[in-house]
């Protein structure tokens, strides 16, 4: 499942842009590949990130995977509930499974992200 209106990365993050804020999570495809998530390591707020930085690590039963920042900026909100209910990422990856909100430093970063159609093509959907 790939939602229209979101942006995507080749590393399977989704990005929802609202004004200066980018909400970030991992895609439905990514959660399916990882399998049941058992632990999420979350960043602290106010942390500065650049495109491609690892800001979180997701531990599933079969693999551990880094989550990369799709944009540069500052982490302004972190979804702390994932620390105790990590399976939100499996159940609702685009909704209650969101991970962080980043204040976008440079809107040009968005141009480098994939559209829903481009991402569908990438995963062969």
């Amino acid at each position, binding site marked *: 499942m790939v939602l229209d209106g979101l942006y995507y990365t080749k590393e399977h993050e989704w990005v929802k842009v609202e004004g200066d804020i980018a909400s970030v999570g991992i895609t439905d495809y990514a959660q399916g590949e990882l399998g*049941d998530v*058992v*632990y999420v390591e979350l960043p602290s707020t106010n942390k500065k990130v650049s495109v491609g930085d690892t800001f979180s690590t997701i531990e599933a*039963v*079969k*693999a551990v995977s880094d989550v990369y920042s799709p944009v540069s900026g500052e982490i302004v909100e972190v979804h702390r509930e994932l620390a105790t209910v*990590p*399976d939100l990422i499996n159940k609702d990856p685009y909704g209650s499974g969101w991970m962080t909100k980043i204040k976008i430093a440079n809107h040009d970063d968005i141009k480098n992200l994939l559209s829903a159609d481009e991402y569908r093509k990438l995963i062969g959907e």
Partner: protein
Amino acid sequence: MSELLWEIEKEGRIGVKLPKSDVPKYESKKLLPDNMVRKSEAKFPQLAEQQVVRHFVELSAKNYHLDKSIYPLGSCTMKYNPKINERLANLAGFTKIHPLTPDEYVQGALEIMSELGNGFCKIGGMDAITLQPAAGAHGEITGLMIMRRYHEAQGNPRKNVVIPDSSHGTNPASIVLSGWQPIEIKSGPDGKIDLKTLEKYLDKDLAALMVTNPNTLGIFESDIEKVADMLHSVGAQLYMDGANMNALLGIARPGDFGVDALHYNLHKTFSTPHGGGGPGSGPVAVKNHLEPFIPKPKIVFANGKYSLDWDIQQSLGKVQAFWGAFAVIVKAYAYILSLGADGIRKTSEDAVLNSNYLRAILEKYYDLPYKSTSMHEFVLSGEFLKKYGVKTLDIAKRLLDLGFHAPTIYFPLIVHEALMIEPTETEPLETLDAFADAMIRIRKEAEENPDILKSAPHDTAVRRLDDVAANRNPILTWWDVKS
């Protein structure tokens, strides 16, 4: 499920009557700081000896192990452990010596360590060795720290270590702990190191490249000499993870294709036990230019005597208690002596032959994403079975029903739904055929009756375990269950 010893204990039941203590009693409170002294009584289950014996015999009957059948865990080299290894390592002359016994009374033990080290140097084409590291990952970090010492002595510790994306998960961890930054490079379409990508990182900041050869796809890195030349041209080092040495023994020597340091896994390649039957052992062999930095003490032979040399100025120091896992060293020595040079080469030839035999059968029924002849192992993908709702995990569980240990699954990460199969040289043709038949049967079941896979295992002592719940809510002791 078997009951735990805690569940069958009875207050007051005694297994062994201990003799009266003939040494003076010391108060632990007087000898240890307060925070190290136990505040409550130690808890032991109260049982008769026979109950304990029956308990463990029952568990051992349920256990799956190499003495029962094939254990095709890719990357782990679960070969048969010859019983003579155990007999020799259990000789009183080995088990009763204290590690601090003066050199002159343990000449035999020192000779074994020295001779085994020489043998490993010969097998790898290397110049010097330390037997200390406790396992493969410990060997990795020891090897990298030796390289770091070397770079520091050259005046620049450097910053980066390149690893291919097919590498073992412990590689990046060892790099970070050694104070470097790991840089992962994508493998080429043939599953090998992509020289063009490597070229981008060739500079004075590059400390080393870590490679497993053959790599975790079971493919020999045929450009390895070129890779070594490229690295050496900027002063960088080539580290080889020797996890897959079982493909190369007596055929190709890492030292001859440009490797500067490598570790061996005695519990893989040299037939010593894995895991619970261990401990492991991960000796690190190096070329001459790295020798000044290897851990001390070094075993030296002079004037007809072996001794431990502690006077090595630039040495990394000690990386393990005493002299390494000595009993494991004895077992590995017994192994290479009983095989001899011809037998050692035959080991790898048969390991590669067995792997190719299974691959040639199974690639007709499963997907082989990196098309190539195999070395000692090969990697299939179960991705195409998703259309029946079947995952690689289901294949692995179904294999248990059919009497086989599952192969390594979901590794390497660059293959989706990976099944990594390493039969090893010790399996006879009949066992390989029986394993192949089971895999073929499962392939048919996936189409015709996928539910039998999804609900597997059916015939094991316990059904499918809820590993998600176990990870999310680990219960680690009996006292957590009771409370």
